């Protein structure tokens, strides 16, 4: 039991009054001589006893009535631990939000204090599991009745750096309850209740009906915050000057305008540019930087905003890599007139900051030994290929090279299948010529990196195809797109460290009008990048894993975390790349024998938005309760609505009981006249 106004307990001294009167009067009972006690002794003792009992009853009633009045004013309420008798079949899950927003002010310390208080209120065999959560959750202890252990675990908690996901934490709690057995189940959610922590995609989530949700809000009060929430940059460039626009978004998350907010852009710890800006309430502005020079290799960059107390999200890290262009080789059939790689060349060599340097050769002029110089080879309907070339191509792909095969009118299915029995993702069949008719691309896998950029446009289906090869995908190959008749259009397979794409039509306008459509250029570039260029990102969000390429000798690099700690995890992908879990914001240093590379990691920007959820609405949403009922619980976030009501009843009940006792006491006192008390 806890008290809202414990100071009123001083009034308990009043309870002592009747007892003191009793004691004082008892000690003062004077000795009086009387002629004989023979008649006193003869008075029926039963009567005296009954009357004495009456008096004792009166004394007790008075004391109890005073006690009840005092207790009523002290506003007692019973914790949930006490309200249920025993508590042995009750299981609790305490969810403590340790996202980085909890590091704001004293929130996390408050959360720990509330958790300790909750644990302290637990009774008897009540079992409690402790879980900390952010984007994910970690079960610190499964159900245990040991409050000492639970408190020690709470004491050891530190705020994390992740974002918040309430629904995932609640799901975790529900999963934990599966091992709790039958009985009452309660979830205590201790958080600052950021609006960003509620995933709208999980709006349909509901807690089980037998699970009670109790929210403990430690995020009350204003929480101004400035943050750099986003940087958009071209992560890799192939020339000294960064000609593109690098944009950074700076957001003011407070309800007050911020004047003269200073923003600084640094590369390799050198200030490149400083800006000053004004941000209105809940305002967000984008500033751009361009025309700066980059050193070769990885450049550590950040945009930083200053003038904010909550510094965790003030700096946004990213890397910009200045790399040499990747070499690509297009092999075509020897023919008169315009090269069949005309469209291909234009697609890959037009514009600035080009990642590829394209060389076009005929099949006969290619020296198989030179393939190793290239990153990507495009067999643009080359006709018959020599065994040496096909063998070198197989080796090239095995070593990690990317190969695109376009099968057009020069490609004979039979010889093709003989030349590339294992390398080609599909065995070619007959050539189909649609005279006066055409088919379009369909069944396009838009989740594939090549087609990802076309996901929204839908223009891929606008290309008309008049001729193609039928094909049969080999085992392990995947069809990325088909023609309308179901015949594979683009098939992919992986061999060794490299990848092969088979396009069953032409890359020029011979069998289709794709090169004449606006999608041709991006499609070709996407294919070349997919095969030849490592997908690099300027930064990684914290909490996710990223992969690091191995060195030339095949050994993964040593990785130093931003704190300087050497990572010991050596988990690798199937292709040997090292997997690094992003756990700290800043720059991870990848130490190769001949160089260092960097990977930037940033906090989740949404966590910087400290605007709050409507807790009642949230509770109503996840429990399916009436939002109005949940709103009634607002004054004390520790309690469920019915428990707040229950507490009120205790208050009134005590007062009514005291009143009833006073009435009964008056009635009894009147019956026994003025009762005197002696021992």
């Amino acid at each position, binding site marked *: 039991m806890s008290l809202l106004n414990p100071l009123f307990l001083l009034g308990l001294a009043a309870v002592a009054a009747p007892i003191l009167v009793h004691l004082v009067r008892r000690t003062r009972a*004077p000795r*009086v*001589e*009387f002629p004989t006690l023979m*008649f*006193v002794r*003869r008075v029926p003792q039963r009567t*005296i006893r009954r009357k*004495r009992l009456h*008096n004792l009853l009166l004394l007790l009633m008075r004391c109890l009535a005073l006690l009840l009045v005092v207790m009523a004013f002290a506003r007692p309420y019973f914790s949930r631990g006490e309200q249920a008798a025993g508590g042995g079949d009750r299981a609790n899950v305490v969810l403590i939000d340790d996202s980085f927003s909890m590091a704001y002010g004293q929130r996390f310390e408050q959360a720990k204090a509330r958790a300790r208080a909750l644990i302290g209120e637990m009774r008897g065999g009540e079992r409690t599991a402790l879980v900390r959560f952010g984007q994910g959750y970690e079960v610190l202890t499964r159900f245990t009745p040991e409050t000492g252990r639970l408190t020690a675990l709470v004491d050891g908690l530190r705020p994390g750096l992740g974002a918040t996901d309430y629904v995932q934490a609640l799901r975790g709690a529900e999963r934990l309850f599966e091992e709790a057995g039958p009985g009452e189940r309660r979830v205590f959610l201790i958080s600052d209740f950021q609006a960003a922590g509620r995933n709208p995609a999980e709006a349909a989530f509901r807690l089980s009906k037998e699970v009670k949700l109790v929210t403990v809000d430690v995020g009350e009060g204003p929480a101004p915050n400035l943050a750099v929430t986003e940087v958009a940059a071209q992560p890799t460039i192939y020339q000294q000057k960064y000609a593109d626009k690098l944009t950074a978004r700076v957001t003011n998350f407070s309800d007050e305008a911020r004047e003269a907010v200073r923003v600084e852009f640094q590369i390799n710890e050198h200030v490149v540019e400083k800006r000053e800006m004004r941000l209105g309430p809940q305002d967000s502005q984008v500033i751009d930087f361009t025309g700066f020079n980059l050193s070769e290799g990885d450049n550590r960059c950040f945009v930083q905003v200053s003038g904010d107390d909550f510094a965790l999200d003030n700096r946004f890290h990213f890397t910009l890599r200045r790399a040499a262009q990747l070499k690509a080789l297009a092999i075509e059939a020897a023919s008169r007139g315009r090269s069949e790689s005309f469209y291909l060349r234009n697609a890959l060599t037009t514009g600035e900051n080009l990642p590829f340097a394209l060389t076009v050769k005929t099949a006969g002029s290619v020296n198989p030994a030179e393939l190793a110089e290239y990153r990507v080879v495009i067999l643009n309907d080359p006709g018959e290929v020599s065994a040496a070339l096909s063998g070198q191509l197989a080796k090239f792909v095995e070593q990690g090279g990317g190969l695109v095969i376009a099968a057009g009118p020069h490609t004979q299915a039979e010889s093709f299948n003989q030349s590339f029995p294992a390398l080609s993702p599909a065995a070619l069949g007959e050539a189909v010529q649609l005279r006066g008719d055409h088919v379009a691309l369909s069944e396009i896998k838009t989740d594939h990196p090549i087609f990802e950029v076309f996901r929204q446009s839908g223009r891929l289906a606008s290309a008309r195809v008049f001729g193609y090869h039928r094909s049969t995908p080999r085992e392990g190959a995947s069809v990325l797109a088909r023609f309308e008749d179901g015949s594979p259009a683009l098939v992919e397979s992986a061999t060794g460290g490299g990848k092969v794409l088979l396009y069953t039509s032409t890359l020029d306008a011979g069998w289709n009008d794709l090169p004449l459509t606006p999608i041709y250029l991006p499609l070709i570039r996407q294919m070349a990048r997919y095969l030849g260029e490592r997908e690099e990102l300027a930064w990684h969000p914290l909490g996710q894993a990223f992969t690091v390429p191995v060195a030339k000798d095949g050994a993964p690099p040593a990785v130093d975390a931003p704190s300087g700690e050497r990572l010991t995890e050596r988990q690798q992908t199937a292709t040997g790349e090292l997997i690094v879990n992003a756990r700290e914001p800043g720059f991870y240093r990848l130490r190769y024998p001949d160089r260092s590379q960097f990977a930037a990691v940033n906090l989740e920007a949404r966590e910087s938005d400290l605007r709050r959820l409507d807790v009642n609405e949230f509770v109503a949403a996840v429990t399916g309760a009436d939002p109005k009922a949940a709103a009634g619980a607002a004054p004390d976030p520790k309690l469920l609505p019915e428990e707040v009501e229950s507490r009120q009843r205790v208050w009134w009940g005590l007062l009514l009981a005291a009143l009833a006792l006073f009435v009964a006491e008056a009635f009894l006192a009147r019956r026994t006249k003025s009762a005197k008390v002696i021992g």
Partner: protein
Amino acid sequence: MWRKEKAEAGRQAVPAGPAAQSSSALPRFLAPEILARISSLELLARAVVEGFISGLHRSPYTGFSTEFAEYRQYLPGDDLRHLDWRLLGRTDRYFIKKYRADTNAQCHILVDASASMRYSTGAVTKLQYAQFLASSLAYLANLQQDAVGLIAFDERVRTHVPAHSRSGHMRAIFGRMEQLEPGSETRLAKVLHDAAERITRRGIVILISDMYDDPEEVLKSLQHLRFKGNDLIVFHVLDRNELEFEFSEPVLLEDIETEEQMHVLPDLLAEGYRATIGAHIERLRDGAAANRIDYELLTTDRPLDYALFSFLAKRARR
């Protein structure tokens, strides 16, 4: 604690005969608290009795003693010995000459001097009141030419002055009476049996006591006296608080005789106590009536005249 105003109120409720009315109508009777100021019991007795007698000139309590009292007309059947022949000779009228009663009876006064008799909530203790009463009765009896004896007792007979009518005897009576001090416990029945054996000649036996003994045993002992031919007058002397049990707060009662102590809630106990002592009194009263014993309950705040009336009434019957 005794509360005077309560006592005044309670006085109205005390069983009272004509004396109760007399006490207010005849202020010449001295209140006990005034009597308490008189140091000599003889003086006190004289004051009481003479004051009492002065109001009795029309009293019917006359007898045929040697002392002339009055005349009355002869009525057929009257003893001719009492005819005043001299008057008949002078006036030729028949008158009977009336005298004071002249029977020389024995009067034994038994005074309880046990420890319980020292109890008092007013001006006088029960023992003092008993002394006043006994002295006055002795004086009055002496005036009647009776032989007066005194027995004072507690658990045994402590003082015994045999009855005599000679001059100077009263001085011995008063002297012994003045020396009485509260003694030890009461053994009333036993002492009365003892007294019955000591009183050899029948007469009037006046018992002045608070009667704290088993009523059945007491009545048996009274019967003992009665069977010996004595006329008995019992003056049951109690303090008013013994009847009413008025205490304003819880008290630790200590038995005067046994020193036994008892915490008492007066409010809880008074009712039961009054009922118990009432039953005790009623038993004594009924037992006395059954044995033709005069029984009078007196409280120490009442004048003595009522007791004297009772005595004279009893004396007249002898």
